[in-house]
């Protein structure tokens, strides 16, 4: 069974450390023009069932540094639009001899299902409201670079936690590495039961980010307003925006982060987004190196020939 990266929840702290160390090393090598391992010979399927520019470009960059070829699938153009099930799409890709998959899907758990049938490495590039492991790794690498450690830090995740895969993956990663995680936001944007998520819930911004080392804002999706979850965007901004006044409640040297895309003036104002506290551009850049690490990690020990062998004697690992 090959390795997958479906979420942070199942990873051991040592595995997270290993991935972050790999990413750090790759970043150094790339910046110094030194060689990185080549995964040449492998073909990586880029299966994006949900629109994404940033994550897709980041994975493409990571793949190209590793000398991986990519094959792209656009959801609208694929056979999914013709009614094919996800299982059949994945089985098809397996017998098209793709070596690995990077997958984004609007449904939580879809990559877990894909991994069951694909048989090769699957990297989750974001599934529904479940996990976005490479984003959490990028954020962790960014914090590490600026703070030197994750252990003992207070990290406040502010905003729409309920609908956020970024919040979940970050909470798992940071808590496993010894940070204190807080979820800050209105009750209507918080899961109704957070007992199995590693974080403490605050509804008040001031107490939620008090003495925080890191304030991580989440994107507020405007379409959520239609469901009557919050009175208005103005209401949200008044209560939860990180700006030059509210950021003072956190530590003086706190890091301000955002996974993007940013709604300027809603979650963050310009002064917070563009200040020296902001780590937003570093998050984007580090995304490339953690994705290199993720791909190198899942392909460890996998030879392209393995695919040929498997194709020669197909066996359906379908769950009973």
């Amino acid at each position: 069974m090959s390795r997958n990266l479906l979420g942070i929840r199942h990873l051991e702290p040592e595995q997270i450390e290993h991935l972050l160390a790999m990413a750090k090393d790759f970043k150094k090598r790339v910046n110094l023009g030194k060689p990185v391992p080549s995964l040449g010979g492998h073909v990586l399927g880029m299966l994006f069932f949900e629109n994404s520019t940033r994550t897709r470009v980041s994975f493409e960059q990571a793949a190209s540094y590793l000398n991986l070829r990519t094959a792209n699938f656009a959801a609208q153009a694929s056979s999914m639009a013709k009614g094919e099930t996800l299982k059949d799409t994945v089985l098809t890709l397996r017998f098209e001899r793709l070596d690995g998959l990077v997958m984004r899907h609007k449904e939580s758990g879809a990559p877990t299902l894909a991994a069951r049938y694909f048989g090769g490495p699957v990297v989750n590039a974001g599934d529904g409201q479940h996990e976005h492991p490479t984003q959490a790794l990028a954020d962790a690498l960014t914090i590490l670079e600026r703070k030197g450690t994750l252990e003992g830090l207070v990290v406040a995740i502010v905003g729409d936690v309920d609908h956020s895969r970024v919040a979940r993956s970050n909470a798992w990663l940071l808590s496993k590495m010894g940070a204190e995680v807080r979820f800050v936001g209105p009750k209507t944007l918080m899961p109704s039961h957070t007992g199995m998520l590693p974080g403490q819930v605050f509804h008040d911004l001031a107490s939620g980010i008090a003495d925080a080392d890191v304030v991580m804002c989440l994107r507020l999706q405007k379409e959520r307003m239609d469901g009557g979850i919050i009175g208005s965007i103005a209401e949200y901004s008044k209560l939860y925006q990180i700006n030059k006044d509210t950021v003072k409640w956190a530590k003086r040297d706190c890091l301000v982060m955002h996974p993007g895309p940013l709604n300027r003036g809603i979650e963050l104002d310009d002064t917070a987004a563009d200040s020296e506290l902001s780590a937003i551009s570093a998050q984007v850049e580090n995304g490339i190196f953690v994705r290199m690490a993720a791909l190198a990690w899942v392909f460890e020990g996998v030879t392209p020939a393995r695919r040929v062998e498997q194709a020669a004697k197909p066996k359906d690992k379908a769950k009973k």
Partner: protein
Amino acid sequence: MKTLLYNGRILDPSQDLDLVGSVVIDDDQLDYVGPNLPEVDADEVYDCTGLWITPGLVDPHVHLREPGHEYKETIVTGTQAAAAGGYTTICCMPNTNPPLDNPALVDFILDRAASPEAGGVFVAPVGALTRGSSGEQLTDLGALKKAGIVAASDEGRPIQSSAVMTRAMEFCVQLNLPVMAHCEDASLSAGGSMNDGAVSAMLGLKGIPRSAEEIMVMRNCILSLHTGCQLHVMRVSTWGAVELIRQAKYLGAPVSCDVAPHHFALTEDMVGDFDTNFKSDPPLRTQVDVDLILQALNDGTIDCISSDHSPHASHEVQAPFSEAPMGHAGLESTVGATLTYLCHTGVLTPLQTIEKLSTAPARLLRLEAGTLRPGETPVAQVTIIDPDLEWTFDVHRTFSKGKNSPFQGMAFKGKAVATFCGGEIYRDARFDHGRIRQLA
């Protein structure tokens, strides 16, 4: 032809009977039920030592899927599964395609169920309350009743408008027709795929809050109280729903309810990593709910046990969690689960177990079933249960087309080993001993 079942533990809640004795079936009728007879001239003799002899089991909640969804189940395969599960009478739900909203469809179902290739059990159809189960215009309930429906329900698409539900109940009172209700406030459950709780929060799945069920249970109980309409709440899943039903009964509302095995045996934690075999409607809840459901089974607040047989095709189940259909094939696992989780654990006595699997649903839905009193059922309906048979449930060995079960691979203690509805309609291969043994 005379069949003798001798030396079994006869459990008949309709007569409060719990004794070791014999049952004689003469042609297709019950001839004798009582203490062992010294001598019977029988053509077939079953040694039932150590086994239970019970009234044929009655399932108030089965989806036979025909017409419209024959790829999931047909009347033939569904009734065969029922016979193998120990059932002799099953109520089939109206959410077929088209829904069971006109008398011609009732005729069709009864015809198919009576065909020789079917399982040989009685099928008691439940008709739709509204046309197309759209929750708006009432069906011709009088004509449907005449055609043979035993209750009315909009099942999976419960009536949201309280005004429509009131009219439906008023009409059913006058027809003396029970209303069976799946209780769900669609505005609260929309888009949800599992219990709204800690596990859904962790998996990032939209939850179905317990309030969605409880609000509708409460509304329907209130309407039952005020209209006098008999209400049967199907498959309760939350402790709150159970408490509301307890209160409604206390107030004198003609309310009853059932629970399905997955709701008394399993919890939300079993969804694990998006295992769609654990996706139910209503969803699997928490241990607190299970504990209170067990208590309510014991004290009688929960009247019966249904299989909530909801077969689906494999390709539908092998899908992302939120896209997979809800429910499980249950006809062939319900007796095993009930004995394992309720009877052997002491929640229910053997007599209470049979009450909830047979006599109570028959009484509530006024079916000629659920009793071993000779002459009270159209034909002899008898189930032989081995309460101590240890077996592993395997969906690949079931009659049902639906292979979606949360009990796959689980160890059960207790199984229906033979079913008689008129003649013998099912016998487990393991039940060979005592078969056709001539007495001197």
